[in-house]
């Protein structure tokens, strides 16, 4: 080998070494990226698009973090999550509902998120939603959306009949009867009682307005056995309201059916979560100006609006994982929880979703949305009079796995349906609910 050849060989080796070093460096950058998974129970494309956009922006600002988003529909969430937990691969971040937070906490897979909440300003959050996901002085989820349940009604029909907003059960029943005219195709009030979720939600609304709880919010002890009289009274009223003014098939109605009935002008009032506004805007836009909202009344007009109603919220949870993934997950939460982004997320389903953070609720981004503007007084009323008093079965005293069991075992809806269809007395139905709850409690409290 000549000197020249040797020099060429040396140069070649050097170049190769540099190239290898460069490639190795690049590879190490790629390998060092922290990959996290994000599951979401969002069900509407506008919500998914918003989430993808925000996450894309986050990834641009944090090229060392890669987020994989996966939508998980309601009907498969338990089997899928249970399998993932069993395999040791729960999602790093999960955008879910209260019952899922409870389930994951019981399975011991969650990281507390107090540091994120405190960093954002705990006092900005509606307290109730934090209480639901708090146990052991730690908060296990961060509220993303607030949901509310109220009565959505036809202002024009109220005006025609010279009716005013009812402030007690009796007044509500009278108004519902006054509006009820099945021969002309209009029922007074849609009382949806479908077995999956909806029946429980409707009964819950009446139950909480009567001050009946599963857990006592003050003593934090199981209290349904002591609240049976109130629960039976609530159930008696609910059945009376159903029989007097609701379409018979509403015993099987889910969200789709009662919203369609309201939008198609078959019911003058309905229990509702606000999504009917979005449906009306596409199917019967003329109706939007006729829609009014009032909090569901309690037994006594002097307490209006009652300090208890059935509500809900969406949360984000962070699962236990190696510190880099947990930190990356929390970094994404801090990014997503700016008032503007929270407001934009809520506006993907305006009126149905409400920011649970005061700064986001008051932000121009939220308040300037056309649909929010249209219902501005009602939304302020909900933010002030409804959201702070929301309850959810099993979560009245903080996070409990009972919430999930109640929701997925249909116990409340079955009780109502049995009273209406199988002639159970309300007292028997409430006794049965209590016995079922006792069995459920024994399962995880033993």
């Amino acid at each position, binding site marked *: 080998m000549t000197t020249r050849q040797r020099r060429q060989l040396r140069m070649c080796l050097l170049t190769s070494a540099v190239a290898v070093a460069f490639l190795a460096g690049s590879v190490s950058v790629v390998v060092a990226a922290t990959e996290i998974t994000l599951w979401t129970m969002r069900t509407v494309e506008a919500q998914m698009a918003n989430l993808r956009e925000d996450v894309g922006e986050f990834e641009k600002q944090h090229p060392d973090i890669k987020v994989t988003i996966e939508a998980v529909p309601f009907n498969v969430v338990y089997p899928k999550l249970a399998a993932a937990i069993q395999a040791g691969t729960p999602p790093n971040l999960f955008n879910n509902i209260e019952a899922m937070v409870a389930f994951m906490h019981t399975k011991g897979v969650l990281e507390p998120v107090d540091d994120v909440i405190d960093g954002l300003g705990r006092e900005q959050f509606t307290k109730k939603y934090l209480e639901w996901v708090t146990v052991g002085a730690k908060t296990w989820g961060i509220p993303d959306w607030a949901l509310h349940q109220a009565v959505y009604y036809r202002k024009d029909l109220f005006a025609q009949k010279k009716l005013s907003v009812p402030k007690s059960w009796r007044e509500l029943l009278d108004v519902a009867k006054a509006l009820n005219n099945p021969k002309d195709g209009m029922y007074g009030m849609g009382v949806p009682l*479908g*077995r999956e979720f909806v029946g429980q939600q409707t009964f819950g609304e009446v139950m909480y307005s009567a001050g009946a709880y599963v857990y006592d919010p003050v003593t934090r002890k199981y209290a349904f056995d002591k609240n049976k009289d109130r629960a039976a009274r609530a159930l008696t009223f609910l059945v009376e309201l159903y029989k007097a003014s609701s379409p018979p*098939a509403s015993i*099987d109605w889910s969200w789709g059916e009662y919203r369609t009935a309201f939008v198609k002008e078959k019911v003058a009032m309905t229990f509702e979560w606000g999504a009917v506004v979005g449906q009306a805007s596409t199917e019967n836009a003329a109706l939007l100006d006729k829609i009014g909202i009032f909090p569901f009344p309690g037994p006594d007009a002097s307490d209006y609006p009652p300090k208890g109603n059935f509500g809900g919220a969406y949360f984000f949870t962070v699962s236990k994982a190696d510190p880099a993934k947990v930190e990356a997950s929390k970094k994404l939460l801090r990014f997503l929880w700016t008032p503007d982004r929270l407001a934009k997320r809520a506006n993907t389903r305006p009126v149905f979703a409400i920011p649970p953070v005061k700064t986001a609720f008051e932000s121009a981004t939220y308040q300037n949305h056309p649909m929010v503007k249209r219902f501005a007084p009602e939304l302020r009323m909900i933010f002030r009079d409804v959201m702070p008093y929301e309850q959810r079965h099993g979560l009245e005293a903080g996070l409990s796995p009972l919430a999930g069991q109640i929701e*997925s075992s249909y116990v409340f809806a*079955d009780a109502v349906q049995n009273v209406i*269809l*199988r002639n159970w007395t309300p007292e028997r139905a409430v006794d049965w609910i209590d016995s079922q709850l006792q069995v459920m409690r024994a*399962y995880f409290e033993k």
Partner: protein
Amino acid sequence: MPSDTTESAVQQPGRAALGARPRVRRGGWSPNGGRLGVLFLLPTLAFLVVLVAYPVAYNVYLSFQDYNYLLGTSRFVGLQHYVQLLHDPVFWRSLGNNLVWTFGGVGGQLLLGLAAAMLLDGPGRGMALVRTLLLIPYVVPAIATAITWRWMFNDFYGILSFLLTGVGLLPAQTSPFASVELAMPAAICVGIWRGFPFAMIVYWATLRGIPTEEYEAARVDGAGGWQEFWSITLPHLKHITLVLVVLRTLWMFNYFDLLYLLTKGGPAGATQHLPILVYITSFGLFRFGEAAAIAGLMAVTAGLIIVLYVKVHGPGEL
């Protein structure tokens, strides 16, 4: 016509030569052939062990455990779950619903399938198109089927509710799914609609195999259409009907998704059958031990039904 017996095979030199080979195989545990044979069987065996034997064995094991999924604890309770279930009215009502759902569905599917098969077997052009159209229910996803039928049974807009009201079977502005008495029959109608094409295709294939000479001879003897059906068609369909009954019974007995999507087991438990009870007990209440016991009793019940069928019709029929 010589029958394909060992005797006739031995009488033919070529067949005899072929017949010698299985004898070597029959001694198949010889050092070379045996191992190779077992090797070839291994993938299937592994598949069966992992996907069939293990889940079944684990289900049996689980049914004897008080497995607390939430707390991650487990303890042996023997037959406790089975004993509790046998004293549980919800279990018995669900079993009753399951039997109604199964027999109603299978009966309807076979009758409609036979009627459709006879239509396809008849003269007329365009039967290929009709056959394709009639197969649609079988290939439509269960969720689409459920949503469509729920809509057709809707209280305000459902065409079927409207028609049922018209003939006086349903009160105005209501839905069969809101009635304890009508929810199951309505769901069975949907199950029949969804499952009849399977029976139709099987019957149609069988009908095409019936020798036309038998019908011609019957006509010469003066038989009418009904007599032809009763004396020729039905006997030819007996064997395949038993096969269909067994297959469809197993299928319907375990069929979860359609009924769940249609009714969720409501109203007031009127359509809650055992698969829905298993689902609620496991993924609603997280009582996997009890759910496994229900699944075990389901398997026993389905097995008993099949044994009964075979006993009635004779084992040679299957």
